[in-house]
């Protein structure tokens, strides 16, 4: 009970902090970075569902991110569709594409899956880059409109954009939390732990893998669409493999397959990158080895380290209680034995 209460207060505290944050800092630059990291978090949560909970490492996520971003950009700029409708359509389109690719990609396993998705990601990037007539090629898409007003609420200021993205992030987290703690989530984990065993238990692994894959691409598409509406300019670079690697780094450093990992990892690395700006393109000199080091020694990331520490502490507490009880038992037993002996002697 106390654990639940504890978690609830932590979550409420974090949400309260996130809501109050822009009013506390009042710094547009900080709010901008924060909004951007929230967008990344949505994408990382999508990746986490697939790689962390279902055990399939997809390297096409930047591609789906770009598909979401370009769908929104093209719908609003070229077709003149309303932003909100375009946002829904962008997610839908990414989901459908994810479904089609997932149908084929999920027939492969492990290494083949990683290589397959790597190639799919590259194809998406190349198509965006080379299809000048539709996507604008290297020049990219300019002049994507900001989210249109909902009644009296407008989304022109940085604070309102921050809240918009925060809203979608909370929605994503809530959704992922409900999935992971449902039967479907358990099924995903069963597939992660042993696909053959899951199959033997009567789980339709293909169907569940596909659900996980499509959901994770939809989140990537949502993140991409929000990115397009926030940055207002997109180029083919957002579909390149480096973005997938960035998402992967956020996920791994936070903790793959954990609920809070994406938040921890993204915030840490995004802010660390801000402080390491003097390194610019060389930041991978730090993050590359960090990634390898973490996966060797702490495969569940920072959140994993914390959980391990908590578990150890609980185990120690449980052990000491247990020992005390044992000692008490022993004392009683001793007393019993000596009483018996005395009786024998007297007799």
């Amino acid at each position, binding site marked *: 009970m106390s654990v639940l209460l504890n978690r609830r207060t932590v979550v409420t505290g974090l949400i309260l902090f996130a809501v109050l944050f822009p009013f506390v800092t009042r710094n547009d630059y900080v709010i901008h970075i924060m909004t951007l990291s929230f967008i990344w978090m949505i994408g990382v949560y999508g990746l986490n569902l697939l790689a962390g909970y279902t055990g399939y490492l997809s390297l096409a996520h930047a591609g789906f991110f770009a598909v979401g971003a370009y769908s929104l950009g093209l719908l609003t700029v070229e077709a003149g569709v309303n932003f909100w409708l375009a946002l829904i359509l962008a997610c839908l389109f990414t989901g459908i594409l994810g479904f089609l690719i997932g149908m084929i990609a999920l027939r492969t396993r492990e*290494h*083949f899956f990683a290589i397959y998705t790597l190639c799919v990601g590259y*194809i998406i990037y190349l198509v965006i880059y*080379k299809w000048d007539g539709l996507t604008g090629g290297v020049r990219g898409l300019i002049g994507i409109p900001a989210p249109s007003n909902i009644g009296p609420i407008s989304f022109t200021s940085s604070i309102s954009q921050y809240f918009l993205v925060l809203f979608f992030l909370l929605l994503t987290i809530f959704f992922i939390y409900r999935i992971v703690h449902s039967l479907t989530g358990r099924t995903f984990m069963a597939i992660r732990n042993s696909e053959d065993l899951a199959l033997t238990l009567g789980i339709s692994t293909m169907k569940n893998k596909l659900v996980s894959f499509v959901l994770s691409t939809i989140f990537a598409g949502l993140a991409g669409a929000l990115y397009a509406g926030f940055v207002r300019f997109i180029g083919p670079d957002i579909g390149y493999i480096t973005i997938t690697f960035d998402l992967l780094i956020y996920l791994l450093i936070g903790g793959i397959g954990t609920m809070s990992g994406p938040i921890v990892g993204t915030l840490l690395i995004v802010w660390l990158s801000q402080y390491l700006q003097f390194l610019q393109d060389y930041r991978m*000199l730090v993050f590359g080895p960090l990634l390898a080091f973490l*996966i*060797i020694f702490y*495969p569940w990331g920072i959140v994993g380290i914390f959980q391990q520490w908590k578990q150890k502490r609980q185990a120690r507490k449980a052990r000491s209680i247990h020992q005390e009880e044992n000692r008490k038992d022993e004392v009683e037993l001793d007393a019993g034995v000596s009483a018996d002996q005395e009786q024998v002697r007297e007799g």
Partner: protein
Amino acid sequence: MEVLGQQLFNGLTIGSIYSLVALGLTLVYGILHIPNFAHGALYMMGGYITFTMMTVVGVHYWLAIFVSVVVVGLLGVLMERIVFHPLRDAPPIHDKIAAIGVLLFLEALAQWIWGADYQSLPTPYGQVVNLFGLTVTLQRVLIVVAAVLAMILLNLFLKKTFTGASIIAMSQNREGAHLVGINTNKVAMLTFMISGGLAAIAASLSAPINLVFPGMGHLVILKAFVIIILGGMGSIPGAILGGYILGFSESLGATYLSNDYKDIIAFVLLVIILTVKPTGLFARGGH
């Protein structure tokens, strides 16, 4: 007809490079069952080290390649020791992620040392020669000859020497090799050394006709993956054959289909193959 001949020769050149890279990748996969995403970074390092040896130290092209092979080979060994050896019992997803970490590190390192600019590698074999009625640069002829020579030597090494046979044995059955007294640690290190060396040869040979830059390994490694899936993961003849198939289809595709989309051919090929046969063509047993 002349265009076709020219393109076929181009295909032979590109195919030779692809085969060399794919060979290194397939050897490592055969031994350790990891797709080494960092192999492209080794390729890139090979190009840069040859470049530095020639422009800064000023040694001859062949000596520069030799130094590059040794250095990149050692880099491969170091990678095996530091990163892949501790992960040998970890879930497969971990190797891949660690390899990506190494890849990112090496690329950033190259950019830090040599800058992000495109460099061109000077070659002493720039002259144009006439070969069976085709006008080609000597460097391209050299690529084909050197690559074929390297493949023959590798084959002899694997088939005729005891050390080579131990590599084959380990790729066939790791536990079995261990049981008959093969030092699997040493074999793994040796394999990484050969794999890095092959990548360095490929990069040094191709650098004069392409360019040297930090991202030069990206496309090559992706295509090498396509090749080893095409030829069967871990299969040596498959990697050579697959390399040439891809080389030819790319050079012909660039001429007769579309030059813009020539890089996509490999990936479309892969997507089709894995769609039809999810375990790759010529898959062995359970892999």
